[in-house]
């Protein structure tokens, strides 16, 4: 059976997949849970139980059929995957096309000694995530497959890579103190705002509600000493609440960091870098150097002050959830330079010829927001004027809604002014430079980033103008780069029209 040897014997996923896969497939059916919860809440408990039972039953049957109809073969030149319950898919992945093998282990899989294997192929980003995935095979077999793929790939160049990297010094690793520090910086403003909203919503129960309309109206109407007392009282409550929220925010940041980045270790391997991380779910990912499209150094106002940043590499493939692969969650300048050096990139030139962007970056936002600012201002003024000299026939209800209107419009006004201020701060930090065979773009104030983009990786260059930016005679430049997430397109936001065109010509001329 020569053909069988070439194609390889059929193999199945490990039977424990029925166990590990159940969690995943149950997680995917949020709609069904909503229905069951609805039934349970409305008192039809029996139907809810039956529904939940049916859900588990059908998931299990589906999973069993998937397992029964899933086969993979490890052949001489390719890996074949046959899958599909009704419509069958026969996929063959030649070894030449497999960049590397990613191994992921969830907590349950680790207990059972299983691993999820993903064959990284040249498929561009945004593609089908399920391209070449073996959901659950024994860990030993996964390691074997990885070795096999590596040896096939490097067969032409040298012998299979010895697995001695464990002993060698990691390119970057995170000790526990660094991990905790990363967690502190991981403080999420979004979560903070979310919690703040929850506190507002359930404020009455917690006795903490600075948004109470009646409260503010009475405050305005009351005499001065009482007002002062209430004010102090309120301030104390607000400060206490904010400290509590901040503590929750820091704690959750540390928990998230530890869960994701525990045991973070970056190693140099033949084709590029290898990253291992995770407390409960361990992942083992390789990043071939050839596929790195851009490097992004992210930071925040506080982290930056301590000289720390996060290094991400934009890759053709996507990382677990986001587009870019984090290769160092919290690293100093020297460490960033060291990692860049390992993939053969020059360190970030500190004395680069940074060119500023146009101040119209701020003005375009201000002009865009001006109608809303004006509206909010008018509303606030109208509300304030009516509240201070109310017409005689104004009822209690109207009185209350006036206060709400005043506060809402003031909040909107503050948000917009803060937005413009942050934009101004970001403008002061924004700059770009041509650094030999690559461009450097930095910007942002709250979310700071420096992008290193090799000219060889630029696929297209757009110069865009909108009807607002045209008044200022400015354009924005946008670079088409492979991989990453669609939202994080690389761009230089505001350049005078002529400058943008000259810079583009400069880039085109220096492109390899």
């Amino acid at each position, binding site marked *: 059976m020569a053909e069988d040897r070439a194609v390889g014997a059929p193999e199945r996923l490990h039977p424990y997949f029925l166990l590990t896969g159940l969690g995943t497939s149950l997680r995917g059916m949020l709609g069904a849970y909503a229905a069951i919860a609805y039934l349970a809440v409305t008192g039809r408990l029996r139907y809810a139980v039956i529904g939940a039972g049916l859900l588990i039953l059908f998931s299990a049957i589906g999973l069993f059929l998937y397992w029964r109809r899933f086969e993979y073969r490890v052949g001489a030149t390719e890996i074949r995957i046959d899958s599909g319950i009704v419509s069958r898919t026969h996929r063959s992945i030649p070894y030449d096309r497999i*960049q590397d093998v990613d191994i992921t282990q969830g907590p349950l899989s680790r207990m059972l000694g299983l691993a999820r294997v993903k064959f990284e192929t*040249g498929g*561009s*980003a*945004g593609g089908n995530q399920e391209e070449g995935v073996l959901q659950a095979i024994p860990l030993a077999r996964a390691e074997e497959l990885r070795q096999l793929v590596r040896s096939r790939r490097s067969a032409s160049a040298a012998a299979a890579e010895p697995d001695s990297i464990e002993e060698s010094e990691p390119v970057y690793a995170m000790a526990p103190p660094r991990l905790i520090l990363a967690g502190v910086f991981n403080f999420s403003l979004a979560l903070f705002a979310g919690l703040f909203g929850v506190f507002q919503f359930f404020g009455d129960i917690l006795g903490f509600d600075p948004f109470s309309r009646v409260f503010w109206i009475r405050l305005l109407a009351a005499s001065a000493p009482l007002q002062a007392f209430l004010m102090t009282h309120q301030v104390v409550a607000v400060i206490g609440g904010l400290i509590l929220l901040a503590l929750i925010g820091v704690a959750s940041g540390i928990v998230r960091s530890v869960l994701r980045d525990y045991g973070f270790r970056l190693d140099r391997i033949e084709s590029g870098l290898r990253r291992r991380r995770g407390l409960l779910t361990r992942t083992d990912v390789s990043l*071939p150097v*050839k*596929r790195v499209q851009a490097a992004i150094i992210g930071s925040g106002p506080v982290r930056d002050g301590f000289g720390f940043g996060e290094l991400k590499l934009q890759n*053709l493939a996507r990382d677990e959830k986001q587009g870019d692969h984090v290769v160092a969650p919290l690293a100093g300048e020297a460490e960033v330079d060291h990692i860049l050096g390992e993939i053969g990139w020059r360190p970030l030139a500190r004395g680069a010829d940074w060119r500023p962007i146009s101040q119209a970056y701020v003005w375009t936002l201000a002009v865009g927001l001006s109608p809303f600012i004006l509206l909010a201002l008018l509303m606030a003024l109208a509300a304030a004027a009516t509240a201070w000299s109310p017409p005689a026939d104004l009822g209690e209800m109207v009185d209350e809604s006036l206060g709400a209107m005043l506060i809402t419009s003031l909040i909107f006004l503050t948000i917009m002014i803060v937005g413009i201020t942050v934009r101004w701060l970001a403008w002061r930090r924004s700059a770009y430079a041509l650094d030999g065979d690559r461009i450097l773009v930095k910007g942002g104030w709250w979310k700071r980033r420096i992008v290193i983009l090799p000219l*060889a990786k*630029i*696929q*297209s*260059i*757009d*110069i*865009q*103008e*909108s*009807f607002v930016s*045209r008044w200022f005679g400015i*354009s924005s430049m*946008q*670079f*088409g*780069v*492979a*991989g*990453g*997430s*669609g939202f994080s*397109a*690389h761009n230089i936001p505001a350049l005078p*029209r*002529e400058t943008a*065109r*000259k810079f*583009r*010509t*400069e880039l*085109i001329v220096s*492109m390899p």
Partner: protein
Amino acid sequence: MTAELDDFQAMAELPGDEDGPPLEHVHPGYKNVLRVRMLVIWIAPIIAAAILDSAVLEDSMFRWLPTIAVPLLAAIAITVAPQRIYRRLRYRLTDRLLHVVRGWLFHTDTVVPFVRVQHLDVTRGPVEKLFGTATLVVHTAGTHNSIVTVPGLAPDRAAEIRDVIREHIRTDFD
């Protein structure tokens, strides 16, 4: 009007790259393609307006307004817009890149170096066949701008451009 056009022309020029050929218009038949496409798009709102009119506005003072106003709007759009879209769509090939300029309110000026093109299509739909045009579709590896199109080319010209670019394609990724 001419001043506007001059301004547009100035914006589209690449300083320092004057030796490249000037920007070209696409085939005039593209205007008809746009007209037919817009007509097709407008059919649904016209019918919806007529139904709304007869079903809801039977006795109101706005009776007949949608039935007349929506087709009128459509007629204005179909007579005015394609001419403008056509006038503002230009392209050129230099010896190393494809340059496409389009749009007015949101003006976009794209360059794609030939060596960055992954693959190329020339597509022709039934409407395009009717008016003798074709669309060149250039695929790049970029997540942004993964597809750059040049619509409204004469089929021979589209094939010619395709052949020029094809010469330069080479795989970039291992």
